[in-house]
Structure formats: C-alpha cells, structure tokens
C-alpha cells in the first residue's frame, strides 16, 4: 500500500531533519560534559541560519555562507561564555536574554540589508551528493547517500566526538571538569578555559546546525524558521545520556517523527490531525524528560565553578 517513492522520500527527509538535531546535540553533549548548559542554543541556531543565508547571498558562495554562520555563532558563544563562566551569571537567564537579543538582531540585520523584498530572497542550497556504492543500496542509500555535506559532516562528527571524549587526554580532562571541577582544578586543569573551549565547540556546531535550515534545506531565511528545534537538539543531549553514538539514534528518531508530518501533509493522509504529528517531537521530549530521570548527568552540570579564596 505504501508507495516506494514515498518511503524513499520519507527516509531521506528523516535524515535531513535529524541532521541539525544531531549537530546541535553533539555540541550540547560536549559542552554539558564540561558542566555548562548552552541555554543560548536556540538563538545560536537562528544566528547560524541567518549568517549562512546572508553570507551565501552576498558572496554567491555557499562555503562563505557557512563560514559566516560559524563566525557569528562563535561570537554569540563567546558572549554566553563570558556571562556564565566569567561573570558566573545564571545560565538560564543569560541564555534567555541572548535568545531574545538574537531574535531581534537577526531580523533587524536582515531588514537593514535587504529591506522588505517583494518576493522572498532565495539562495541555492547545498546540493545533495551521492556516495558511490552506498547509493546503490536500496533504502539505506536514502539515509546515508543522497544527502548534502551537512549530513555527512554530522555523521562524521559522531565517531569524532566519541573518540575525542572517551579516548583522548583532553576529552578526559573535559569530562572531569563537568563531573568534579574541584578535582580537575586541583589536578591543575584550568576549569574556566576548558569550559570556554567547550562552549565554543557547541556554538560552532549549533551555528552549522542552524545554517542547515537556511542554506542546506529551505534556501530562505525567516525569523521563525528554527521553531524550537534548537531546544530539541538540547533535549537530544539529555536523553542520549550524553553519549555521541546514542545521539545519532536520538536525533534520527526525532527526524523520523518530524518527517512523518511532512509525509502526511504531502500525501494527504488525514488519519491523524496534522497538528498532532507536528507536536509529536515535543511530546516525546516531554515524556522522555520525565521518564529518563537524568541518568548519569555530569555531576557539576549547571553549577558555576567558584574557586575558594
């Protein structure tokens, strides 16, 4: 009964939807392993989307767009790090403030540059590349081939993050900072510097994730294009138990759920109200938050580190 084209497109879109969640989730895993929650993630996604679009539109180069996205998100990340690590302000308040500011700034800067165009501005998005050999495998090819570089990057980052966190000295030091910053400090590790580094990594990955929406998928920029997906990436870190490999499955699950609603819409299946399917990712997050019970959260997560004396 299910058309093979529909199935292919469903798998393909699922992976696409999962990509930014995976990128953002991996970044969040790294920064939370160091003990900091990136509460500005939604705003950084948006800044990444904006930077990517503006950079690509003005320079006619998608690569430049990506670089602009990264630069912009690093800037926001530095501000967030300054507020939460140096000034030791509450992470939720600092993040909320930055998210509000980012929303205003991106829209405003967009208007400053482009005014209110009569037809929405578009850019060419990153093309899908097919990987030889894999592209011949039915079904799987839709997940692992026929995707653009965002997806390949995201998938690549999974083993890289895993190796970095669990098989390098630096990763060990980073994880110790998140578990017991006093112990790390007494072992001679500069806790603040480590956390800043982690915030930077998270910002870069979140910025790339945001750029996916503008220059990797939709080809436009609107102020509501992120619609809480930054927060879902945030939640991915949480219930993948802060493990990169689990994040792959977690984000894929969300991708599947998001893609379901698109499939229903395009094929006109009215069995379930469309809004219910759209709400599914968020409902799942709520349920997971309640049941997953912070299995092995980094012990010092969210606490600013104050050196005695």
């Amino acid at each position: 009964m299910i058309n093979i084209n529909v199935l292919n497109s469903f798998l393909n879109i699922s992976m696409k939807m999962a990509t930014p969640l995976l990128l953002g989730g991996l970044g969040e895993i790294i920064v939370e392993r160091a003990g900091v929650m990136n509460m500005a993630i939604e705003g950084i996604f948006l800044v990444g989307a904006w930077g990517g679009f503006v950079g690509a539109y003005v320079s006619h180069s998608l690569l430049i767009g990506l670089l602009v996205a990264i630069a912009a998100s690093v800037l926001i990340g530095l501000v967030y790090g300054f507020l939460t690590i140096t000034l030791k302000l509450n992470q939720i308040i600092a993040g909320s403030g930055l998210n509000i500011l980012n929303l205003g700034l991106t829209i405003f800067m967009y208007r400053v540059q482009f005014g209110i165009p009569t037809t929405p501005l578009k850019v060419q998005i990153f093309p899908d590349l097919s990987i030889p050999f894999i592209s011949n495998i039915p079904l799987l090819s839709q997940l692992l081939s026929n995707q653009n570089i965002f997806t390949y990057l995201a998938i690549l980052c999974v083993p890289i993050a895993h190796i970095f966190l669990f098989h390098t000295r630096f990763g060990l030091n980073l994880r110790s900072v998140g578990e017991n910053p006093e112990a790390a400090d007494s072992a001679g590790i500069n806790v603040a510097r480590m956390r800043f580094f982690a915030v930077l990594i998270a910002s870069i990955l979140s910025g790339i994730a945001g750029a996916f929406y503008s220059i990797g998928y939709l080809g436009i920029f609107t102020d509501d294009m992120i619609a809480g997906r930054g927060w879902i990436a945030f939640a991915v870190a949480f219930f993948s138990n802060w493990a990169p490999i689990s994040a792959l499955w977690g984000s894929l699950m969300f991708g599947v759920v998001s893609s379901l609603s698109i499939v229903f819409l395009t094929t006109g299946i009215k069995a379930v109200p469309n809004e219910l399917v759209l709400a599914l990712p968020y409902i799942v997050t709520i349920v997971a938050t309640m049941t997953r019970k912070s299995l092995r959260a980094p012990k010092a997560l969210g606490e600013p580190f104050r050196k005695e004396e």
Partner: protein
Amino acid sequence: MSNLLLEMQGIAKYFPGVIANDDVNLKLHEGEVLALLGENGAGKTTLMNILYGIYKPDKGKILVDGQEVSIGSTSDSRKYRIGMIHQHFMLVDVHTVVENIILGLKPQQGRTLSIAESAKKIQEIGKKYRLDVDPYAYIYQLPVGLQQRVEIIKAIFVGAKILIMDEPTAVLAPQEANELFEFARNFKKQGNSIIFITHKLGEVMAIADRIEVLRDGRVVGEVRKEDAAEDGLAQMMVGRKVVLDKKPEPAKMGPTILNVKNLSVKGDRGNVALDKTSFEIKAGEIFGVAGVSGNGQEELAQTIYGLRKAVSGSIKINGQEIVNKSPLFSMNHGVAYIPEDRQKTGLVLGMSVQENLMLKGYCKPPFSRDGVLNLDKMAETSRKLVEEDSIKTPSISTKVKNLSGGNQQKIVISREIQEEPSLLIAAQPTRGLDIGAAEYVHKTFFQERSKGKAILLISTDLNEILSLSDTIGVLYGGKLLKIMPREDADIQKIGLLMAGIREE
C-alpha cells in the same frame, strides 16, 4: 632521623574575623612521620593548605632543603615533591583509577604515558608500598579505604616524597586504618616523610616520630614520641582555659523526654556515622555531646529532627517513636532544632527578621487564618521577641543577611524556643559568636532548662560543654564512648575520650 627536609618559620594567616595561624613554626626531617595534633579550629588544616600551595601565608617563610621557596600554587608544591591527601577526596566517581590519576598530567620528558603504561606504573607503586588497587576499577565501586589509596598513589605517581594527610582515618574502618599505618611505616622506611593531621591520640602514639600540638592557631608543644605521654598531649590539645558559667541551681530532672536506642546512621559518603548509639535525656537536663566534629554529631542531630534516615534503631520523644519520619513530624512532637549551619538550613537570608522569626509559626493561629497571614500579629510578636531577646536590628523588616552572626543566631534560638518544644537540639550554638552573644545563648539554655525542657547540646567547644551540661557524653567514631554526670567530668578525661582513648 636525618636532614631537615623542610621548615616553616613564623607562619601567620588571617581570615576575615579570624586568626587562623599565629607565628607557627614547623620542622620536617627525612624519613619522619610528624603528627600535627589539635582540636577543631586549631589551625592545622590551614597550615597545611599553606604548605600545599592552596593559601598564601600573610607572614613567614617556607624553606625546602635550606632554601627559601615560594609556594603559590599546587603545581609549585608538586615541584618540591609535596603531595596532599584531603579529607574530601578529589576524585571523579565515574572514572577509573587510572583516569583519575593521570588527570591533568602534562607530558613528562617529552611524552605522555599511555593508559596501559600508566596502569603498569600504578601497579608497581602498589606493589612497592603495598597499596594494591585495580587500575581499571571505577571509583564509585571502591570502598572509601581504597579510594583513599587512589589519592595516595596519585601523589606518589607524580613524585611526592612528602605526604600531607588531613585526618586520614576519619572515614576509615579500624582495619583500613591499620593498613594505612602499615603504608605510613613503609613509606617512611623508603626515605620519605609524612605530615599527619589528626585529633586522635591513639594514632599519634602508633605511628608518629614527632608530635606538634596546635591550639587556637599557635604552637603549644613539640615533643618526640619517646618523650610524649597521652595525658600531657591531651592537656596541650584542649588547654586549661576553663571558664565556668555559674549554674543557677542543680538540675531538677523530670521524666525521660528523649530516648535514643541503638541508633545506627550512615553518613553521606556511605561511611558509618553513628554506630548503635544509645542515650537518654530527661526533662530539665542539658545533655552535652562533646567530640571533634566529624564523629557523627551532624548526623545525630539531623536524624532526631527527621532530616536524615536511620539504618536502624529507635528515637522516642515522650514515648512516641519519631525515627525515619519527617521534620514536620518531629516538629509536631515537640522537637526544636538549632542547626549547625544556620545560614544554610536555619534561616532564609533573603527574608526579613520577622519572616524568619515566623518560619515555624506562620501557618498556625494567631499568625494566620484560613491561609491569610495576619501580618499585624506577626509584627507585634516579632517586635516583642526582638526586644526580649535583644536582637540588634534596624527593624523587623531588615533582611537577615544584613545582620551579624550573633543576631542571626538569636533569631534562630528565639524562634525555636517560641515553639515550646519538649526537646531542643542545639548544634554548635555559639560558633562564630562573640562573647556577649554566646553568654546570651547560654543564659537562654539555662532558662529553658529551668522550664523543664530537655536540651541536647552538641558542641566542639569544651568550655561550653563543661559550663552547661548536666550530663556529658563523648562522641568518637560514631559511638558514645562514655556518658558521665558533670561532677565526674574534667578536661583531662574528656580530652582523652575525644582523642579516642578509652579508660581501662
């Protein structure tokens, strides 16, 4: 004993409102175990934190091998081969032993050891000093004694030849403590040295070569083990400053109010905090629990008040079992509690004097009716209490965080007594208070005693215990070593008991 390894001369350290170290000298020789003996607040840990590089001294100097050195950080002290084992371990629970030991290590001689190589080195150290531990075990899997071993190996791994150990047997079982002493003897034999911070005379006599006694930030004695006697040491430790408050009248004790039987409680680190403790307090009696902090005092108070669960045993107030219920239950059955950490538990710093005074009364008439607070009545009663108890505050609306420690404590005491409890638990009630405030607290306790209340006084201040108590018990290692009426108690006896020396 041979060459002088290091020397601390004229060390002074001040904290806001406190002189932690005052002109302290210390010598350490090669192949020696030096015991730093003293009560709470003597200045031992501060002195060692200075040696280890966590604090900088305000006065004085440190010499290593005869040369003056500056130790401004822990990496400096590591340079001079000094390592420190803290009371609270600096370990990451969810990582393995190897991962903890190699944490933060910089490459030595151009390369970093791999995990396998590090594990091998750990095993070698383990064999050499009989500190065997599985390098690949997770810290949370290890009992406290083994966790401490990891800390020791960590120090030796980076080349420490001088180990500072801060109350190392505080969380150890007797068998584990013996193993630790074995290690100390071994370590010393290999030409290394140990500085041992403790308040336990038994340990000192077991393994120290020399003993230095600190009291109130000053050195009051320095003896070689051969010349030392327990009595003399105990006396030096607690001093002869006995200022006795005149007791108004001998106690008129009534029926038993508090009955604790075979109470066993676990501490936060899984250690045994209370071990089948039993005692009774009668109406009109002040029962003083003496002892160096960390021997179960905090857990005792919390368990009676319902903030902590007991593993086994019974706590009865006026015959009613209250163990393992809740603070509300204890409160409703006549237990009041002046907590040790008033700012963390007993007060809401961001609220006003009035609101803090009403912390337990706010939901009862006449202070509220049908869920609405009667602010006028609260203000009236608060003003009365402030005046009666001489709480110095600009107004009853002043936020408590702006008051002095003494006045904050007065608020806690005033409030608890308002509740007309049967049992008043007072944990370190005069800590951080000036003489005037402390006197006021003592006067209040005597008043409550005359009214027939039972008071459980937990204090590390021997003066306080001796001045106030009708009955004294000494808590050591989770056990009440001895319970005696005041007449039978003296500084000597209590000092010995506090240091773990039982009478024959």
